[in-house]
């Protein structure tokens, strides 16, 4: 069986759904970061696949961008996470409700 575009896209969708569920269900901030990473990488798979399909490098370029930004975001995010953990001794999401309306 030839592995075509559709397979990649299905993979991307499945990954995205996993990420989405993770984003919704996880209460641990660290795991939430993992879930967002899965989301971003699901998109990266899609970008790369479509880029290859059209023979246009822009998509792959975007994937690199996403990876770079995801890395920097994670760096900032983890930094904040550590600070939070030092202050409150927990990284459970339910304790972070100071933005309640």
């Amino acid at each position: 069986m030839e592995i075509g575009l559709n397979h990649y896209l299905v993979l991307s969708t499945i990954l995205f759904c996993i990420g989405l569920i993770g984003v919704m269900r996880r209460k641990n901030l660290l795991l939430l970061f993992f879930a967002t990473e899965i989301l971003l990488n699901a998109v990266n798979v899609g970008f790369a696949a479509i880029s290859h399909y059209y023979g246009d490098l822009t998509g792959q370029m975007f994937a690199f961008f996403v990876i770079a930004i995801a890395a920097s975001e994670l760096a900032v995010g983890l930094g904040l996470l550590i600070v939070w953990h030092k202050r409150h001794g927990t990284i459970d999401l339910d304790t972070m409700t100071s933005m309640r309306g």
Partner: protein
Amino acid sequence: MEKYLYIALFAPLVSSLFAALFTATPKKQFVGIIASLLIFTAFVSSAILLTHILGTGEIVHVELMTWMQTGNLYIPFGFVVDQVSVTMMMVVTLVSTIVHIYSIGYMDHDSGFNRFFSYLSAFVFSMMILVMSDNFAGLFIGWEGVGLCSWLLIGFWFHKESATWAANEAFIMNRIADLGMLIGIFLIYWNTGTLQYDGAFAAFANLDHATLTWIGIFLFIGAMGKSAQFPLHTWLADAMEGPTPVSALIHAATMVTAGVYLVVRSHELYALIPNVGLFIASLGAFVAIFAATMALVNRDIKRVIAYSTLSQLGYMFAAAGLGAYWVALFHLMAHAFFKALLFLGGGNVMHAMNNELDPFKMGALGKTMKGTMIMMTLASVALAGIFPLAGFFSKDLILEVAFVDHHFIIYTVLLFTAGLTAFYSFRIIALIFHGEDRHTALGHHPHEAYKFMLVAMSPLLILAIIAGFTMKMPYFEMVTELLPATEYHIHSHTTYWIMTIGTQVFVLLAIFFAYKKYMCRSVKVPDGTSKMENSFAYKLLINQYYIPYFYEEYIVKAYRELSVVCWEQIDKKVVDASVDGIANIFYNTGKNTRHMQSGNLSTMLKWMVAGTVALLSLAVVFGLAARYSGEITTILSGLGV
């Protein structure tokens, strides 16, 4: 002549303004004197105008300035002195001069002396506008003006609850009628394009009958209010709360006759719609007997005279409705003289008795108040219509009119009323001046009024006596230049004599009966125990046929309660609550949805996902719909949508 017209018109205004300058200061005798002099000036000017019109027969017509002008509407302040208005001017200025002079004595001890003259003169001014105006709008100015002055004067003693209540009642009831009048004016304007009498009357000939009937009806509704015709009559009796000179001037001689004047003035209209005329005559006859019956039992001198006025107004309307305009105007004039006299006499009695009004508590006042007694008796004789006093000529004429026109029901009613009139008039005369002395026991020490008050009244007395036989013919010749000169002669002489003598005998019998019943020793102050006082008829009459009660219970109360419902229930609980309700929807939406904003990152992320999914699915749905819009339309049209 125009000069005199302006003097007659504006002298009362000057008088009113002059007196108004002193309203804040204590009583000043000269205010009364100067006001009286100014009104007398108006009287003299009116007299000059009268001689001018009698001599030359030419009508004085002036236009002072524009009042309102917009679109096609053009209303000037225009004044006309013709045979009809000059008659009214004479009556108004004469009676008001006398009442002004009389008031100097009557209001002697009142703290509002200066204010009283200001109001009284303002009334005269309004009345002059009413009668002299040459258009319906000007008439309406006077019409409302006299209503205002009547309000001020009825409520003159404003510390009394009853007086202010009566004042408001009179004003509001007149307002109801004024609406009718206003609609009549609108009808005239939109159908004839003008409000000037001459222009409008000329155009009436070309209008269809239905329109004319409506105009006639609406104008008459206006007249019904001012002249206190049933069912708008209750205010007149209550208006007796005002000072007595006011009752004499406004509620007997002048203002209440404005309705009659209006009908006479619009005779060209009413001549075209005899069916409305017949209605007016029937209502007049009804009011004549209706008011007379209420006067039979009343225990308040002023109210008896007020009902008598009402009854006489009924006579005037009967005559005017039957097309005998000059007769109506003649009775108006004669009535003004003797009724004003009667009221002023009543005022003397009231003064003497410290404002006691119940004739049963008087008796034998004739000993101390001879002058007043003579005047009131003669005025009553004139009112009863005994030959040769004024009432005989004017009132019998109305009976003849009804008879000659073959309105026998009206005739019979009016004839019977003549008997009642004689009875109730002499009932109070007998009770006040004759019989046993019942007042000393109650601690009253009556005294005669000031000399000058009696002297001031004497012109009225003279006119009440001689107006009939001296003035009838010249008057007839004068006014019939303007009004239809229908003479009312009963064809057979025998019938005429039988009728006249029969009426006289009937009236005399009524007088005799009144004297007999109320001069005897057994008359006592009624205490509610006698058989008569408990009879149904008495109760009906003393309660004025329960009409005021009905108005109070079913109209005033209902209006008051409905108003409260409008405010408390509708305005607050429906209209405003729905506005606040709409505002609350937004407020509550915000209040309820703020829980979404829990600050919990994972809840918010859930919402975010939900929103994304919703938006995406919407995009898909719209995308599909746009793509397959052709097919969808076909399917929908196939379904018959």
